[in-house]
């Protein structure tokens, strides 16, 4: 799997992402600075990692969405390419319009830096193939603007077309307001594009991929991608 990680000024989780991708695929991903205007030939997966691109000025991800490389990422997605956005990467995906909705300030106004649990709402996608429907896994989160918002029509479509990938849940899998620390609509932690090839989520599965990190809860996302893209 040839993965490309896009690095913007202020991105700071690209090395975590590289560790997770290399652990799952055995191959080092390519780091690409946002000034580039094309992706390397043979790119299988584009990853927009976490951080604070352009200082989160104006809105999180708003400046990054206008970066030269993002036109190439949009073209790649339009050709059916796989794109993963985590945290700030998810914010960038919504700002570019590759995924619907927006990420608002956390309802509590607090920056949340803690572990959360997510329930897998849509197994069998390139991002979730190695989980079963309803599996619950732990992931760290670290964000000030993770409160997923979309209008009623979009919410109905996401739910109706089964495009919610993950919801915030209790460790035993209950979808409760208390588990929804940032106030996201319908406990939405991550969503998918209609072709199931673009996924954005706020928590960081890449930070739990090795027993040395305290667990491997996040590893199935990366092994899923490796296996799905190997057979694609």
């Amino acid at each position: 799997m040839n993965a490309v990680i896009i690095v913007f000024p202020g991105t700071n989780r690209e090395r975590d992402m590289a560790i997770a991708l290399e652990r799952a695929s055995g191959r080092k991903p390519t780091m690409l600075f946002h000034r580039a205007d094309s992706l390397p030939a043979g790119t299988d997966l584009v990853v927009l990692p976490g951080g604070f691109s352009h200082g989160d000025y104006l809105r999180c991800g708003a400046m990054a969405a206008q970066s030269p490389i993002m036109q190439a990422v949009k073209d790649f997605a339009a050709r059916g390419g796989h794109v993963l956005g985590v945290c700030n990467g998810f914010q960038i995906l919504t700002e570019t319009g590759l995924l619907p909705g927006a990420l608002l300030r956390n309802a509590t106004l607090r920056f949340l830096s803690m572990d959360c649990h997510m329930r897998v709402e849509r197994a069998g996608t390139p991002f979730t193939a190695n989980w079963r429907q309803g599996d619950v896994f732990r992931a760290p989160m670290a964000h000030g603007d993770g409160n997923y918002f979309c209008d009623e029509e979009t919410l109905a479509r996401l739910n109706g077309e089964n495009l919610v990938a993950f919801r915030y849940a209790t460790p035993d899998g209950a979808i409760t307001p208390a588990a929804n620390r940032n106030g996201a609509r319908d406990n939405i932690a991550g969503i998918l594009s209609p072709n199931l090839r673009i996924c954005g989520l706020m928590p960081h599965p890449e930070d739990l991929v090795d027993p040395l990190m305290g667990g491997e809860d996040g590893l199935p996302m990366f092994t899923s991608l490796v296996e799905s893209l190997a057979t694609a």
Partner: protein
Amino acid sequence: MKAFVTVMPKAGVLDPQGKAIGHALSSLGFEGVADVRTGKVIELDLAETDPAKARAAAEEMARKLLANSVIESFKVEVV
């Protein structure tokens, strides 16, 4: 000339900052504040001297970058 772009959260979009300010005003003893919404004002210093063209340019900037139409509305004032 200058254009002031005011960007506000749309009705129905949670504005926790506005809520927090409302609570603070209430605890300071200010009464009768039914609701508080927060937004931002972006001041543009434009080379354009025609007000209509300046407004059109500022609106295009707002649509493309300054406001996110999913969650925000904007208005432009040219002076």
